């Protein structure tokens, strides 16, 4: 889906060509819309370089593990963290936003490594889940301090890893709570919109989908209802994100895509539960997927269209299974469907080239 900026760039070039707008106004008009610029190839390489530098520091400490005294190892790890964070502050003070984001992300990653390495250096035993969550919270703190979306994305990834680690065993009387993603994913989505960050929107959207199974302990014997409820909530959120695209542009579009994926995915998942399983569920899933494909085409949103197409295939398979059709018939139906899809794709490609 083309963003407002891309559409405006196209239109501006057209208007300048027709003499409707002076060429020298192009830059000023584009700057006036305030949409975040996309990093170019050099910036992307700088980002990768910055992240690799963080990994290099950790690898250096690990490679010289035996030779470096314990306290020196700890000082090195802390120094790497403070150096990255200090660099981010320096870059931010000089208006080098991208460099600041990269260094703050490196600081978040180094701090996550520092927690693990400190545990090793001083043989401090602890739960991996607690370590990952602490690292996630640290990344979130750095993100909020620097108004930086990338460390926030790092934090969400760490919190997700923490949610899927085995935690301490709970006693019979202790409350069963959902994972931290249940709170972190919506907050991440809000920050992605507020900071106009597509990267954070991607991670937060995926985190919202992954947050659903963390409610498993609360709905132990009601997985179908949980997934159905999640589908409704994610569907409503997708509709809200679609509505917000005019105001928040690309990040809202990204969220719209992932939330549509989540709504269809968890609706499909609800059909594997005994209560909801059946032909009716498969037909509903099929109809929803077809609707999502139509919506995706209308909105020119590839991620939404893809969710619908995959949903159609999965719902079709589920329908065949629920109807009790034999494997050979299923193979023939899917083979024919694949041929039709490939044929249409071929024809569309030919038309585009023409």
């Amino acid at each position, binding site marked *: 889906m083309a963003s407002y900026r891309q559409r405006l760039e196209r239109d501006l070039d057209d208007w300048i060509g027709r003499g409707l707008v002076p060429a020298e106004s192009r830059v000023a008009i584009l700057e006036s819309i305030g949409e975040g610029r996309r990093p170019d190839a050099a910036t992307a390489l700088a980002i990768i370089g910055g992240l690799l530098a963080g990994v290099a520091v950790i690898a250096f400490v690990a490679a010289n*593990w*035996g*030779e470096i*005294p*314990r*306290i020196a190892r*700890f000082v090195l790890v*802390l120094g790497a*963290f*403070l150096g990255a*964070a*200090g660099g*981010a*502050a*320096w870059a*931010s*003070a000089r208006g080098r936003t991208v460099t*600041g984001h990269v260094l*703050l992300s490196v*600081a978040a990653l180094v*701090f996550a490594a*520092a*927690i693990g390495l*400190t545990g*090793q*250096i*001083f*043989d*401090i*035993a602890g739960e991996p889940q607690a370590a990952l969550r602490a690292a996630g919270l*640290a990344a979130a*703190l*750095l993100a*909020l*301090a*620097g*108004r930086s979306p990338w460390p926030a994305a790092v934090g969400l990834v760490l919190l997700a890893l923490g949610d899927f680690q085995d935690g*301490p*065993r*709970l*006693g019979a009387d202790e409350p069963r709570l959902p994972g931290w993603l249940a709170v972190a994913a919506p907050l991440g989505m809000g920050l992605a919109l507020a900071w106009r960050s597509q990267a954070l929107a991607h991670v937060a959207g995926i985190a919202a989908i992954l947050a659903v199974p963390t409610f498993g302990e609360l709905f132990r014997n009601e997985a179908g209802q949980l997934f159905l409820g999640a589908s409704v909530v994610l569907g409503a959120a997708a509709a809200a994100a679609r509505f917000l695209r005019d105001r928040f542009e690309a990040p809202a579009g990204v969220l719209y895509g992932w939330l549509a994926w989540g709504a269809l995915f968890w609706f499909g998942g609800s059909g594997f539960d005994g209560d909801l399983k059946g032909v009716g569920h498969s037909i509903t899933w099929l109809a929803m997927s077809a609707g999502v494909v139509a919506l995706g085409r209308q909105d020119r949103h590839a991620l939404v269209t893809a969710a619908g197409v995959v949903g159609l295939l999965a719902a079709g398979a589920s329908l065949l299974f629920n109807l009790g059709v034999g494997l050979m018939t299923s193979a023939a139906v899917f083979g024919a469907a694949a041929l039709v899809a490939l044929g249409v794709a071929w024809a569309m490609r030919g038309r585009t080239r023409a």
Partner: protein
Amino acid sequence: MRVPGVPVRILAAASVLALGLVGLVVREGMARANGQEVVLPITGYDPRELLTGHYVQFQIRSEYPGGAPCPPGHDAATPGDGWVALTRRGDHHEATGAAASQAAALKLGEVAVRGGMECHARPAPEATWVMLHLGVDRLHADQTQAEAIQELLRAPAGGAGRGYAIISVGADGRARLKGLAAGGRRVDLLWF
């Protein structure tokens, strides 16, 4: 009040996090130094797993003649929320019971430590094994040191290990590793 700028906020957040990490190390070091020291027999449970990277992996395990009964309450303590009672026997400590609470565990032994117990009672000629899960199962060391400890710790086939874990039991009941002793040699966790 004026909100500080982004660079100041970044530096403040980084300082808080760094101080938090330093505080954790200091707190754990103090708890380790001030805790009650117990010495527990250890062994590696699989020679292939004994040395994984730069740490020595071990299991806290005592062995008794076949037919020996399991300590009381051995199935009452799960690693997450149980307590193990330890009592001195000669130059080391042994598990003499387990319970769901610290007070109950202290009735079964001299020291109560958070953790779980697993007991495999077997008839003679096999041995009865009592294994403790105290959250302490490895010592990070440089490779040369780790290999030397590995050689000393590795149990002969069917035999008991020849090492001891020196553990500090803090006021919070948590076990913290202080060092390992094997073959008359002791490795302590030091700052340097």
